[in-house]
């Protein structure tokens, strides 16, 4: 069954929300077995608490949700501690950065300790990518260069540009072998096809990025892309199992 490599649960201070029950219903409706989930940016800004609540929801979900740890690097050492706690105590499968909502450039040198901590903990890093000045694909690539053994996963194919003008930057970042992309919001089939062809299907993961994007529509994108059955299996679930550990890990 497909694995959704990223959706968000909770209530965001930025005006959107998705509850666990609604997410499960949407996953069931689309035949998606599992979702990697991240906390929304909560109204009180307490990401450590949001991560803990997310871990509880995931633990009760019967392996439908694989939690991540979302941290705000401006919190410095306490954010590093929260990351370690979330991974070692609460089973977080990845570190999630959202440079747009937490307002930091992903290539700021102060993030290097997070790259190194992710390496020590053996977890991948998902970066909300394509946001001007803070998470352009080449900026994410710079971050990825600090942790070459860590899978670094760019959302939205590495860009949020309705003319596709970030595609070359995304491909520059993909020259680093640890950089991957999510399919969420990529409006052009040929961009995904090019990534599969030029960098390998191992570098592409299906994700909805719901609730901002739509579970069903985002899954249909992947079924539109021309690739072999083996490649599609990797994109829909195989890569997520390898990178996040899969439901039973």
């Amino acid at each position: 069954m497909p694995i959704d490599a990223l959706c968000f649960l909770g209530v965001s201070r930025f005006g959107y929300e998705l509850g666990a029950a609604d997410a499960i219903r949407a996953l069931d409706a689309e035949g998606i077995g599992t979702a990697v989930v991240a906390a929304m940016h909560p109204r009180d800004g307490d990401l450590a608490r949001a991560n803990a609540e997310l871990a509880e929801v995931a633990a009760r979900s019967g392996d439908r949700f694989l939690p991540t740890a979302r941290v705000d690097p401006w919190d410095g050492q306490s954010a590093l501690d929260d990351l370690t706690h979330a991974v070692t105590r609460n089973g977080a499968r990845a570190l999630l950065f959202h440079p747009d909502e937490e307002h930091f450039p992903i290539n700021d040198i102060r993030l290097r300790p997070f790259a190194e901590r992710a390496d020590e903990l053996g977890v991948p890093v998902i970066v909300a990518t394509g946001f001007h000045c803070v998470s352009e694909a080449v900026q994410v690539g710079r971050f990825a260069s600090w942790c070459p053994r860590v899978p670094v996963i760019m959302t939205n194919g590495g860009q949020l540009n309705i003319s596709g003008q970030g595609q070359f930057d995304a491909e520059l970042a993909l020259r680093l072998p640890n950089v991957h992309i999510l399919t969420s919001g990529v409006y052009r089939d040929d961009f995904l096809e090019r990534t599969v062809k030029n960098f390998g299907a191992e570098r592409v993961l299906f994700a909805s990025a719901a609730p901002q994007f739509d579970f069903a529509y985002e899954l249909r994108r992947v079924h539109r892309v021309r690739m072999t059955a083996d490649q599609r299996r990797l994109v829909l679930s195989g890569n997520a199992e390898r990178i996040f550990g899969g439901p039973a890990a």
Partner: protein
Amino acid sequence: MHMHIDDVPSLGWELSAETCVASMDEAQVDAAAVMTIVDLPGGANPTAMELIAQACERFPGRLYGFIRLNPRHPAKARELLDVAVTELGFRGLKLHPVSSLAHPAHPDTIALIRAAGELGVPTLFHCGDEPLTTPLSIAPAAAACPDAPIILGHMGGYRHVDEAIDVAERHPNIILETSAMPYPAKIREAIDRIGVHRVIFGSDGPVSSPALERQKVVRAGLTDEELDLVLGGTAASLLGVA
């Protein structure tokens, strides 16, 4: 209401009319507005107008031409617009401020939009997240040309969709076109706020899939009557083929 044909190998664009029509057939799309990727005059394809005209001639009733122009060459652009519409049967004007660097509210742009309106054809803007193309950048042009239909292609892209709906609420000559933007639910919201006759299906194909783009409209929760209008009824009126 938004597909591309061009032949500019130096920019990596080789999109044939046949490719367009094949993707339309797959998506069960009867007709499309087609335009080049580059502008006239001075763009990378000096024969852009002829390319579109010939494509429409080869596929009558399937392809309708939009002339893509750079308003920063006001006299030549106006001349090309006249020829395209009155002699070659083009059905619209396409403006892409990222490639032309012409601000939508610049007097030369406004003059061209107004001329298109006087010729009875709409103006389709690329409307996304980039500077020069956001809904609020286009809004002054809509205010300056209240009798000229202005279509916001991509209805604001990824992060300006709410802004596009807001601008359309305030300017009744603005029409929203659905291509590429990733939110099916926003189509429903737009119809509720500005009316079903001002939201039209576009694909930005053939590089983005008309079949998938059509699914976005189908998934928006529209009535059958609304679906008919968004998928073609309103566009047919705009193209003058209703």
